């Protein structure tokens, strides 16, 4: 048994799972900051983002060291390659939560969102956070079925995101251009966040099956 090597591989997965948990917390707080105009919470999300950035740098360093020193193959190789990609997705998720928090801070003490779209964002926030927590579970359990379910759950966010365009394009939209831009950008942030969570889940399917879902083959 290459004991130290397998401990390193486990550490790599642990690190990713921890990042998932961090970006889920970040989006949960950012959404609350957005909905409640909570400046303190927004500030916390903004300052905590560096933790996720550092975790990503650590994961990359670990992955490179494993590639350079251990020449992993088969499942082990897929773990390392998937970790490199997943760490990038997770860092982007952290950044998107950061953008939401910054929008809340920018408009403070005024609310960013007009009342009629508030519930949409509350819902997108909920789904995004759930997706990130599921991604954490999938990283820990390598459960392919659970990973595939994440992909289906992302549809709800896509639907809301699309619907927001019809709301702001309505000729009777009373809140002006600045609010419309905020809603457009924020909607996009939530939609991207969910997409990255799906991408992380797909990487875990790749680790287990050796095939990326959705790219040719029968596994899509």
């Amino acid at each position, binding site marked *: 048994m290459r004991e130290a090597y397998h401990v390193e591989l486990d550490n790599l997965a642990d690190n990713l799972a921890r990042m998932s948990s961090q970006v889920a917390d970040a989006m949960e707080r950012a959404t609350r900051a957005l909905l409640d105009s909570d400046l303190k919470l927004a500030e916390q999300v903004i300052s905590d983002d560096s933790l996720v950035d550092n975790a990503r740098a650590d994961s990359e360093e670990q992955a490179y060291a494993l590639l350079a020193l251990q020449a992993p*193959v088969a499942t082990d190789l897929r773990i390392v390659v998937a970790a490199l990609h997943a760490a990038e997705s997770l860092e982007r998720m952290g950044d998107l939560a950061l953008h939401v928090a910054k929008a809340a801070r920018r408009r403070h003490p005024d609310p960013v969102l007009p009342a009629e779209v508030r519930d949409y964002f509350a819902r997108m926030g909920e789904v995004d956070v759930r997706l990130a927590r599921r991604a954490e579970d999938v990283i820990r359990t390598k459960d392919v079925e659970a990973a595939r379910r994440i992909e289906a759950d992302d549809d709800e966010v896509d639907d809301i995101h699309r619907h927001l365009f019809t709301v702001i394009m309505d000729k009777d939209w009373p809140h002006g251009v600045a609010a419309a831009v905020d809603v457009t950008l924020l909607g996009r942030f939530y939609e991207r966040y969910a997409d990255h969570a799906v991408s992380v889940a797909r990487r875990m399917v790749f680790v287990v099956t050796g095939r990326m879902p959705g790219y040719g083959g029968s596994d899509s």
Partner: protein
Amino acid sequence: MAKRIEVKDLDIYYDKFLAVQGVSMTIQPRSVTALIGPSGCGKSTFLRTLNRMHELVPGARVDGKVFMDDQDLYANGVDPVKVRSQIGMVFQRPNPFPTMSIYDNVAAGLKLNSKRLKRSELDDIVERSLRAANLWEEVKDRLPKPGSGLSGGQQQRLCIARAIAVQPDVLLMDEPCSALDPISTQAIEDLMLELKERYTIVIVTHNMQQAARVSDVTGFFNLRGVGQPGELVEIDETTKIFSTPSKKATEDYISGRFG
């Protein structure tokens, strides 16, 4: 040249002891097939049945079939010496004939096969073989010197030149780099990639990265259990074996998850 080998249900015995059981595989011409597996699993034993060297051990024998193209290598009346001239072998430790010159080492097989060759013909074959083994430039000015004066890596290439001088159809290599440094190893690996244009190459190696680098197809041998015979667990394209092998035992072995 470059013939296909077909093995069918081969059982290999040392006297009453069944060392390897039930091997079937097809080895494609103009390719490198690597055999990997833990020590004692029978991969070298298997290799030596392909040119009928196994039976040189007293009491050793096989059941099953080995074909080279359409020729049944174990049919009655087949001359094992003839088989060995068609299927060359390179061993773990370079074994040039120590008292012979570099030139005579390469020419040894031709002389043994008692072909009457003119000196100029022999010169040509020696040069061609040494060039094919990527050794010519290094030794062309000292052909009459003893082969044992060369470095380990050069000696191994000399043995390869000796093996291909008789123009075999197949080249078997039993851990040809395990006694060599990384630079000589790379020279031999480069050579294998050149030689596979013309030969069928089968290599036994303990170096899995070497199997991954040089071979087109990889076969994994393992013991069925303590005191049990060795068997071929899985054979497939090398990329498949090292990315998504079908058998868990293969994955465990290549990932270092054993014991």
